[in-house]
């Protein structure tokens, strides 16, 4: 009886609040898979001329033999990709129907530009990491799939992903356009590239613009603003904070703290600076200026903003499609992450890659798809969907994402910068939550337990 429902459990994480760590980068399902673009992917062979890749597509048919020569193609890999034909399967999670639409838009662009390769997209519903793990075990993986920075290091170390260096060199795909911060996360210890960042997202302040007229620029102003809003306008709390490092890290950095040294040799969370920063974060709960989504009765902070339970939340680009579709009447705006005692602007960014499975049987086709989706044209179509920011310098900032994009200039990676990050986050969140619930509000045990987890992670 217990096991029968195990499979069902995967399907349900959506409702269980999987969005909490930021839908753009975390596997949170929510239906909406079947989108109409399937039909458009089948037909558009003849409309090839419309594609921006057309100018490249015209020449390479004859120069196919010389596809090793990368110069002529301008480094987008399209000359090589045009010589490839066949099928490729693609899988990822889908946090909202908008994500599905944006992806289908990019895929139909691909079908137009590369009619010889048919992409079969299958959304993975439920707990993405878990589902993929079973596919790895069965050695039956999609050819190309998303890898969240959270666990990219583990997957690379376990040999689950195909190194891409050979494909990059034989296709002449230019990787220099990627933001280095995002691209470096998918490099293995062997220096090889195991994924290309499909997009990024940064954390910024989203505020209810009916209640907050001038957004705070510093954390001191943030506290003042929150204090002035406390107990007013029917708010349950001025701010919604996550009790974990998935957002807390931005505040930790803002106040001059750190988790681990840059060379990953030493934990830095159990230091005075970090402890003070964690205590600052905890004090917002203590003083009634912030509450967790769970205590507000919402599944994530975006929902709390929509329900007008709070006036200020710290989220990323995934908030926009959610608010538009679920709470269109709530007026909100973005402001850059307030600066803390460190003085300099800082926030955190998340990224996700496209990678190829080590057991993929269609690696050439998969890489051809990748050159388009992580290339300028594909990424433009994808980011136009409003869910995420481009991970390339040569792709224009989508409409309404200026604030979030400004953050990517000074953002530090929010995950994937060290091994065992999932365990570190768990250690932090467990003790932090415990401190909140016991109402002891002491950062000491939090940094101690996190430090132990960091030390364990970097020693392995």
């Amino acid at each position, binding site marked *: *009886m217990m096991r029968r429902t195990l499979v069902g459990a995967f399907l349900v994480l959506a409702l269980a609040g999987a969005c909490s760590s930021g839908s753009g980068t975390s596997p949170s399902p929510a239906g909406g898979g079947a989108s109409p673009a399937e039909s458009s992917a089948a037909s558009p062979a003849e409309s090839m001329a419309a594609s921006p890749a057309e100018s490249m597509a015209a020449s390479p048919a004859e120069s196919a033999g010389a596809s090793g020569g990368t110069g002529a193609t301008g480094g987008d890999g399209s000359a090589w990709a045009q010589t490839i034909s066949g099928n490729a399967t693609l899988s990822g999670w889908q946090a909202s129907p908008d994500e599905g639409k944006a992806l289908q838009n990019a895929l139909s662009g691909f079908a137009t530009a590369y009619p010889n390769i048919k992409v079969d997209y299958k959304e993975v519903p439920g707990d993405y990491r878990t589902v993929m793990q079973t596919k790895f075990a069965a050695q039956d993986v999609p050819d190309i799939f998303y890898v969240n920075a959270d666990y990219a290091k583990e997957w690379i170390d376990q040999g689950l992903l195909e190194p891409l260096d050979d494909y990059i060199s034989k296709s002449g795909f230019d990787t220099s356009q990627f933001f280095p911060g995002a691209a470096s996360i998918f490099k293995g210890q062997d220096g090889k590239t195991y994924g290309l960042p499909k997009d990024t997202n940064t954390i910024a302040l989203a505020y209810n613009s009916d209640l907050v007229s001038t957004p705070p620029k510093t954390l001191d102003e943030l506290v003042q603003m929150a204090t002035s809003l406390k107990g007013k306008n029917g708010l349950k709390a001025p701010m919604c904070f996550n009790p974990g490092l998935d957002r807390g890290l931005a505040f930790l950095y803002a106040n001059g703290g750190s988790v681990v040294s840059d060379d990953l040799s030493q934990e830095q969370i159990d230091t005075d600076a970090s402890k003070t920063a964690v205590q600052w974060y905890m004090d917002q709960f203590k003083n009634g200026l912030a509450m967790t989504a769970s205590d507000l009765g919402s599944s994530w902070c975006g929902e709390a903003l929509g329900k007008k339970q709070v006036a200020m939340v710290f989220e990323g680009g995934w908030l926009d499609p959610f608010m538009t579709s679920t709470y269109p009447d709530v007026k909100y705006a973005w402001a850059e992450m307030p600066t803390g005692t460190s003085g300099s602007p800082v926030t955190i960014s998340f990224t996700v890659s496209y990678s190829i499975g080590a057991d993929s049987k269609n690696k050439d086709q998969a890489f051809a798809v990748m050159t388009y989706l992580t290339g300028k044209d594909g990424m433009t179509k994808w980011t136009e969907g409003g869910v995420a920011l481009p991970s390339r310098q040569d792709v224009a900032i989508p409409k309404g994402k200026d604030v979030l994009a400004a953050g990517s200039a000074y953002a530090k990676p929010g995950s994937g910068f060290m091994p065992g990050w999932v365990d570190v986050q768990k250690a932090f969140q*467990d003790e932090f939550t415990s401190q909140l*619930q016991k109402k002891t509000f002491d950062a000491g045990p939090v940094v101690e337990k996190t430090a132990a987890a960091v030390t364990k992670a970097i020693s392995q």
Partner: protein
Amino acid sequence: MTAATSATGQPAGGTPAAASPVTTGSEKRAEMLAGYALIVVPMLLFLVLNIGSVLYEVFVSLWKWNVRTGPQQFRGIQNYQTLFADDIFWRAVQNTVYYAVIWVPLTMALGLFLAVIVNQKLRGQAFFRAAYYFPAIASSVAITILWIFIMSPEGLFNTVRGAIGINPLFAALGFSANQNWIGDERTALNTVIILNAWTTSGTFMLFYLASLQTISGEVYEAAALDGASWWQTFRRITFPLLRPAHYFVATVALIGALQLFDQAYVAGGVGGDPNNALMTVVLYLFNAAVSQANFGYAAAVGVVLFAIIFTATLVQRRLFGSTPSWL
């Protein structure tokens, strides 16, 4: 199950033996062969799928095991050492044991109570039987989601207790008006226990009901003639005569309790949030195997869980004495 075996067991033991004629050696052999032939398929399946996989698990637990390529590095008992040194594992064991100790008696008592009620000759008996059994047929995931909504800070439970004015009672126990029952580490596990006691009691009611109906009316008549009260009848007659049902239900419940997973996973996620309050041994195993792809380590957890369940069942057997002849 108990009812079924005792019903078919009697004629099987009685009549055919008396009727069986004297058999020659070769007939006996043929009979024996036929018997073995009949059990060989299920026996093979049992050996391969049950015993085989247990042994394989023990083997895997001694290795660092890659999800794609299999054995990577021999670890010996290292996986077990890491396991026993992990605080979260012990928290999981503690939670699981606590759950079993509270939930098993609770759900058994509830099941028995319901069975006794619906065993009365009441109007609408069929309706009550169906109604009490209903939660058991609902998917545990769906019902857990429902429970999460009911027990959330703004949920039905908090609203209702506010409306009917029993909040002072809860305040005296230290719970605020908008207590986050599943999100608070102090109440999360108990909240899940209540949920499961409710949903599973229907199934146990059914087991008890089947057993109740095998108790002959004569013993009740005799008791009535002796002037036994309702309670005395229950205490001295019904309860002891239900011993096979107690044994069966307790075993099934204990094994189920030690394998608690789905409600904990749905309510607390892979991490058994908040602060491992919903971390169970099976969830820990799932985490190691499926989230972290640490198959060797997860196999070690599985072996330990196997040992725990095996021991618990043995202890239980002793507790209930030797298996009754009519079981």
